């Protein structure tokens, strides 16, 4: 399998990372190298094998439905690029 430069542009778009033409070329070459290694997986017979998503087979814990965190809005927003009146500012989305 070979990724085309269109594939690279498509996934960069999905990942919301701007890439220029030069980066696209380099990325295409490198990702094809990486997928050359990844392709080894296809040779393994995994029929009937349960996918393993975590090391321990434990169920997610449940907790009581009550507030455990205090309000830290100011501290958390102090590290934001732009806030006003307690809101995160982003470019206008809805015309």
């Amino acid at each position, binding site marked *: 399998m070979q*990724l085309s430069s269109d*594939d*690279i542009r498509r*996934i*960069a778009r*999905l*990942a*919301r*990372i*701007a*890439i220029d033409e030069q*980066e696209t070329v*380099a*990325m295409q070459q*490198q*990702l094809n*190298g*990486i*997928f*050359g*290694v*990844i*392709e*080894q*997986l*296809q040779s*393994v017979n*995994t029929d009937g*094998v*349960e*996918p*393993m*998503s*975590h*090391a*321990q087979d*434990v169920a*997610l*814990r449940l*907790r009581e439905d009550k507030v455990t965190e205090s309000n*830290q809005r100011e*501290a*958390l927003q*102090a*590290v*934001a*690029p*732009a*806030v*006003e*009146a*307690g*809101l*995160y*500012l*982003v*470019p*206008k*989305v809805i015309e």
Partner: protein
Amino acid sequence: MPSQFVALQHRCAYLQAFPVAFRPTPFCCRSSLNNELHGTLPTLRPASPFEQAMTTYTLKQAADLLASGKTSAVELASDYLARIESLNPVLNTFITVDREKTLEMAKQADARRAQGQAGVLTGVPVAHKDIFCAEGWRTTCGSKILDNFVSPYDAGVISRCKDAGLVTLGRTNMDEFAMGSSNENSAYGVVKNPWDQTAVPGGSSGGSAAVVAARLAPAATATDTGGSIRQPAAFCGVTGLKPTYGIVSRYGMVAYASSLDQGGPIAQTAEDCALMLNVMAGHDPRDSTSLERAGEDYTGALAQSLKGLRIGMPKEYFGEGLSADVQAAIEAALAEYRKLGAEIVEISLPRTQLAIPAYYVIAPAEASSNLSRFDGVRYGHRAADYQKHINEKTSALEALYEQSRAEGFGTEVKRRILTGAYVLSHGYYDAYYLKAQKVRRLLSEDFQSGFSQCDVIAAPAAPTVAWNLGEKGDDPVAMYLADIYTLGVNLAGLPGIAHPVGFGAQGRPVGLQLIGNYFSESRLLNAAHQFQQVTDWHTRQPGL
């Protein structure tokens, strides 16, 4: 109309008025050595005999001296800070150092001791990998995208270290978002291997390993997603433990691949790693994968005899691809283990080779999801001139995301995000991600069948000693292949320890990795500790 709506309506105009937006002043980085001292202390100053003596202490020795009243936390911290100031400009092991904060913590530790409230490690200074959020400390994770991020809260590991009274010496350099095996992917410059400054220190916890090797801290916290504790510990001639997945809280530990990431200690000795793990390990309800287990004293089994310990040697780990110098040092170490009463048995981990493709699907997939949080909105870097990139295909918000992430992430991080986005994308999920998870199960089963024949598994930590800075340059595949001996442990979620066993080519350190079954940290620490009672590799230190 509620005032919130007003703010929403005006946000676009607001942004145009303040294109650079609000940036909190990173107050702690102002005093960082990188910023302040690079120019002023260009040459290496030999440490005075006094400093040399103080800073070569193990964690245990430092704790004992504090307990006996022979030194104070302030004195210890000052001594380490002096050594850091002289050596950091050369080695680049720390991203942030904040003398005032450190000394303030040391004062508090001394006060705590004066009140009779000291724990075993109260007042001992340690370094933290710059991946653990620490309130009031700049936490970059080695990335430009978090260059201005001063954490508003403490990670679980940091809270536990604070509770124990440990003093923070600084924040160690690392591969960006823990993605790398050489520390060359840091946005804050490469770390030099203290044994040979033309060599890499390993990665991603290269700063933490180098700090311990250079005696800039008696111990450091670190994380291991695919070998990031064990491989740099081996490359730098120090001891590092990657615990069983779920033992150390991931809360506030910047996420790379959540099903693999695990925090752990790096120190000179196994005993020190045990003391650190006693502090770091424990249930944390804020991490959904943190295990609820009874507390364990990891120093409890250190003194046990190794008589009858069965050490498995996987034949796949000692064949083609392992360099002769590493093999020789490891065989000598295993002979030493035999003298201690251990028995060596050959085992097979037949699918070892598949750890590389499985890891390089699963880790990037999880990374692409985890790193979607860096969007230039809630924290971290926001592109200043994203508006130039708005066009018929790209809205203002998309341009903000795309430019902020393009500017903030380094090349390797982008590679892994794109790899992950691809394997998770429509039509490819089953072929790659699901397939890799099935292979992960098979790899894990191989370890279990191995453990039916032995108690611990011996392996190299890496196929070679530390390579030269720049050697693997722009070849990600060459770098990935060097992770062959460490990735399987993360995929299976097992614990592993690396400890120094000698020197290979060009006088660079060699590490032996011991892998245990789930929750066998005490056994691994015991084995390494017994080895360290009869050998002195762990006491060797680079001439700096």
